[in-house]
């Protein structure tokens, strides 16, 4: 039987410049599945990403900006892209030279697809 989470992460990880990706239970802030390098502390990253997304959603709603569709952190050596689906959120780590347009698309597609 196929695993939609694993398939989705595999698709993301195949994009040039993607360093890793994880699917996070958005409400609990815990990782569901991850494919990142061993030096990334997955539980901490999952918790902080979920917390950041929830806080941003709350602030955006309070400010009258409506629902958050996607969130992208820009760092010195890359990007963190996030999108929230119905129950889970998808987080991808990408290098500065990654195909960011494609990564954004896949992150959003995966967030909408997985339940």
């Amino acid at each position, binding site marked *: 039987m196929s695993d939609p989470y694993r398939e989705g992460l595999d698709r993301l990880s195949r994009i040039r410049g993607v*360093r890793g990706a994880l699917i996070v239970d958005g409400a609990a802030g815990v990782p569901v599945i991850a494919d990142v390098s061993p030096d990334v502390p997955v539980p901490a990253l999952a918790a902080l990403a979920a917390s950041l997304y929830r806080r941003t959603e709350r602030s*955006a709603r309070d400010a009258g*900006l409506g629902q958050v569709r996607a969130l992208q952190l820009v760092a010195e050596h*890359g990007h*963190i892209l996030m999108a929230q689906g119905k129950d889970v959120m998808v987080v991808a780590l990408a290098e500065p030279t990654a195909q960011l347009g494609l990564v954004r698309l896949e992150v959003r597609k995966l967030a909408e697809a997985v339940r």
Partner: protein
Amino acid sequence: MARDPGSASFVALAEAYRRQGRREEALQICLRGLEKRPTDVAGHALLARLYLEAGDRVRACDEWAIVLSLDPDNFEAHRGMGFYQIEQRNLEAALEHLRRAEAQRPGDRAVREGLSLVRARLAKRREHVGQRAPQRAAEEAPQRSAQRAPARPGIDPARLFEPLREETPFLGALIVDAQGLVLAGGIEGGEWANGEALGAIVSSVVEDAVRATSHTTLGAWRGMLVETEQAAVHLAPLRDDLMVVLVAMPGAPPGWILRAAARAAALASAFVEARS
């Protein structure tokens, strides 16, 4: 340079391409370099020249405005803005820019001819309206008619980001302090469009953004793009706990947002430095 587009040598490389007639490559190098080094005066000046040579005077003017915000006495930017303002028939603004260019390089023939032209047109205009005030007083009058005054130190903080206003997706930009209070800039939009509300977003999410980034191997946090139903909001750290917030229409291209954010950061840096 190919490995590090933020390298200080990007201007020299772009200039070399420009001289070879490879303008598109020069433009791309400049744009990428300025993403990494948004306060590089020579980079903005070269980008202005590339836009000018491509016939895009509006974008060239935007870049000169940024140059002047970083380097208020820049000769090339004053000369370029002076001729642009002549085209726009903003003669008082043209006069001011060309006089400042002349002060930097008194012998420049183009500037001298531009000044003669502007003075002749101003004299004709005064004659036409029967104005008797001495020419000198008129020349020193405030530039109220200037539609695109450069964002140099001393400008009204609410107009700091004027150079970005002509870009369609741009709704506004702000400098916000750690308490979410707006120091400069403004937003145009719907009912949500007020600095206080956006300040709330900034102050409440930045700490989490910094912490989330610190748990990866991607280095220090440099900014955040939030795409919502009503707008796309980009936040970036400035200095001294200040943030630059750029707001664009929902669905604005992310690449455009990141470039516009870099330009907003350059304007904001110059503004803050002028006051520190």
